[in-house]
């Protein structure tokens, strides 16, 4: 008994021939079909996905070689000039904030770690201090010093990588490898301290996981003895280069007002002339005891952001020196029960990461798991500015402007 089998679905973009149903023909679709094939859902989409005279769409990402992670940007181009952009986020969404709600307070540290995978320690720092506020814990001074020391090392690693990326987006092949050498040394010494190269999982509620050990100190001393000259000479490859300076200066200018309107923080804000650094503005940890400068620049362009980050590397080296000099003795963990049950309440805490203010807002309901942990990520804030900065620039500059804001897609998509 033959049963009627349902017709197999046709391959995408084909239809059956009218003469012979066994023949598949390719659909005769319009060549210049708008990139999302659905009808526009909002007015903004309708406006963006209507092409003007001589314009075309260019779909950049999520696999483009230089979109810094998995960002997709739909560009509307007029020749090589960008008219409008439509960024599409969410390709790296892992639901970290939801995962955190189903984990112990201790376990959340490993969950928030991979958010900003370039500078993981700061992703831990903000939630951990928020929990400490919830629990009303006093962190030992030695632990605070170790936190600052490792955090500043991580900041240098992040800025070194920024330098390489920025140069790579401008077409220079060499700086990315030189800066990766620096980053690798830092990351290796952090591995000697924390046990992992990238997702450190090092900070604990009330202290840090392990004390300074001999291996870390020897690696650190070895690197510090040549860090300044090495980084200076790495920077010297580009920052006087005429091609580099002409391409980066006057590009993607953010004035102070715009920066404040976009809630920019960190180096991107300081490059516009606002000396706002959380380490000085709302001092936390042991930063009030340390002596360091907040470098600022007034130009607000890509070159200013680049040079400012290079300045910050030097300030971080100063901080590391002072930390090593003043490192007190004592415990590295506060006395805490294994199972944490903070009283119901809420706490906000923020730290100055390499990209800006990295914040965490934790709500406790009295159980051993956080009721809610909201992560405030600076990359997401800075990426908003791309929409205002890109239009009017050339295609070649889109990547440069995006790189100069230094977003990390892990933090943007959470």
């Amino acid at each position, binding site marked *: 008994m033959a049963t009627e089998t349902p017709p197999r679905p046709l391959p995408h973009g084909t239809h059956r021939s009218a003469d012979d149903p066994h023949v598949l023909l*390719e659909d005769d679709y319009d060549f210049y079909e708008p990139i999302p094939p659905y009808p526009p859902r909002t007015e903004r989409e309708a406006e963006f996905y209507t092409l003007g005279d001589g314009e075309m769409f260019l779909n950049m990402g999520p696999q483009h070689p230089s979109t810094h992670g998995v960002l997709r940007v739909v560009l509307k181009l007029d020749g090589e000039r960008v008219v409008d952009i439509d960024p599409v986020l969410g390709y790296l969404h892992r639901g970290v904030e939801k995962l955190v709600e189903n984990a112990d307070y201790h376990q959340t540290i490993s969950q928030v770690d991979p958010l900003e995978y370039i500078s993981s320690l700061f992703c831990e720092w903000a939630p951990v201090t928020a929990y400490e506020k919830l629990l009303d814990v006093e962190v030992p001074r030695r632990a605070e010093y170790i936190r600052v020391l490792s955090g500043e090392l991580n900041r240098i690693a992040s800025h070194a990588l920024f330098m390489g990326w920025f140069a790579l987006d*401008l*077409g*220079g092949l060499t700086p990315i490898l*030189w800066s990766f050498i620096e980053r690798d040394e830092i990351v290796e010494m952090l591995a000697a301290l924390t046990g992992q190269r990238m997702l450190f999982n090092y900070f604990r509620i009330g202290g840090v996981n392990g004390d300074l050990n001999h291996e870390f100190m020897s690696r650190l001393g070895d690197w510090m003895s040549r860090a300044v000259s090495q980084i200076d000479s790495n920077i010297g*490859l580009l920052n006087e280069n005429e091609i580099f300076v002409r391409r980066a200066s006057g590009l993607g200018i953010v004035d102070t007002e715009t920066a404040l309107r976009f809630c920019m923080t960190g180096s991107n804000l300081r490059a516009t002339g606002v000396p706002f650094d959380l380490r000085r503005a709302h001092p936390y940890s042991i930063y009030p005891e340390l002596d360091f400068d907040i470098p600022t620049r007034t130009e607000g362009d890509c070159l200013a952001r680049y040079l400012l980050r290079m300045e910050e590397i030097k300030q971080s080296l100063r901080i590391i020196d002072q930390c090593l000099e003043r490192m007190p003795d004592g415990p590295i963990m506060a006395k805490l029960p294994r199972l944490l049950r903070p009283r119901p309440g809420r706490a906000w805490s923020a730290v100055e990461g390499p990209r800006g203010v990295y914040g965490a807002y934790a709500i406790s309901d009295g159980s051993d798991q956080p009721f809610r942990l909201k992560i405030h990520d600076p990359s997401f804030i800075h990426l908003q500015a791309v929409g205002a900065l890109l239009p009017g620039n050339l*295609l*070649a500059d889109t990547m440069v402007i995006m790189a100069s804001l230094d977003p990390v897609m892990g933090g943007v998509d959470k």
Partner: protein
Amino acid sequence: MARTWDRLTIPGKALFVLIPLLAVLTAGLIITIALFGQQILDILIFNLPIVRFVLAATVLLLLAPPIAFVIIYMEMKIIALMNLRIGPDRVGPWGSLLSTVHGLKVLMKEDFTPTRADAVVFTWAPVVVFAAAALSALVLPFAPGLYGQDFNLGLLYFFAIGGMTVVGLLMGGWSSFNKYSLLGGLRSAAQIISYEIPLTLSVVGLVLLAGTLSLNTIVVQQGAVYDAAGNLVRGGWFLDWYAFRQPLGFLIFAIAATAEANRTPFDLTEADSEIVAGFATEYSGMRFGFFFFAEYINVFIISAITTVLFLGGWNAPFPAPHISWIINPGAFGIGLLFLVALVPLIGTLVLAAPFYLFRSNTRWWVALILGFLLFNVIAGGLITLWAYINFDWVAGLVWFMGKTFGLVFLFVWMRGTLPRVRIDQLMSFAWKWLLPASLLNLFVTALAIVVIDALRHPR
């Protein structure tokens, strides 16, 4: 029979067919030559220019991939060393065979055509680019007497054929059905056409000085002048090169040539951080390989033409003492037999002895192998030296290749250092700076020629 045939692998089947075929063809060829050898030779001699052209084109097309392999390897290794990496070090000595292996890999990869691509244009674009790159080498004088064709419009031919590259790039960019490719193709069109003008204008001053467009003559003019007896009359020092008579022209030519070859800092057509791979985004397999080869052959040719025009071509930077060291093998008589039979043996033993005697842990056969290698190196060096002294074309080729690969090193060095310029900077640089500068160069040169001529021959 059929089962045996099926058991053969694909190379086996190919050999099974090819070997009998080749045997038959060779036999036929031998018989033909034996019967009609003299007549064939006569015909060939009668049509010598055509034969020379075909031979030169064949040799150049065959030589192009090896040159590209060498330059690709240089690029990989030099940039790696500048990046503080080691780079290729696994295939061959110091990884030198890696680019060859890459070439073989490219041959084996799938040759992919996108669905909506214009298949014919898509297929022919790499061919056009490669042919343009390889054929412009036809007029290059590599050494005295070692050039494909020496005609009076050599420089013009060079620029004309070299400019054809842009047609291929544009074809590839247009036919790929990809917006990145399209942008790359259009960028290459804009860039190469813009830089063609200062490139050509910068050598006009040189042409005024030289009074000819023949590349061979231009090289001869930069060298030493000998009388009939072989004695040096004048010149021969590197100050005779056109780079020192036309410094501004040389600078403009170098910059424009970099842009012409799509090299950093003007590699906008394949800017990987902007438009993924430019015109080559959709290409794969050997078609991509042709683009890749063409790029590196272009580097070689641009270096070579710079050498020919401005750096004296095959001429040594100092006047060479005109000695000759002629060895007549017949003069040795029966001694030649002993020479051929005994000298390698004795040389090997003599050179192996120190390894065996003074290093106690060396096995005898290791010492022999080392001695043999050392003897080969020394003998090869001696023979090369003899050839260098005795044959003009060997000396010329050594100097020509040395200068050319020095310039290739410069290109690679720049790629390792410099970031990329933007398209509007590129254009404004060409039109606002290079073009006026090359016109100025032309004007100054013409003025100088007129003034010096007037001073020398006052009316």
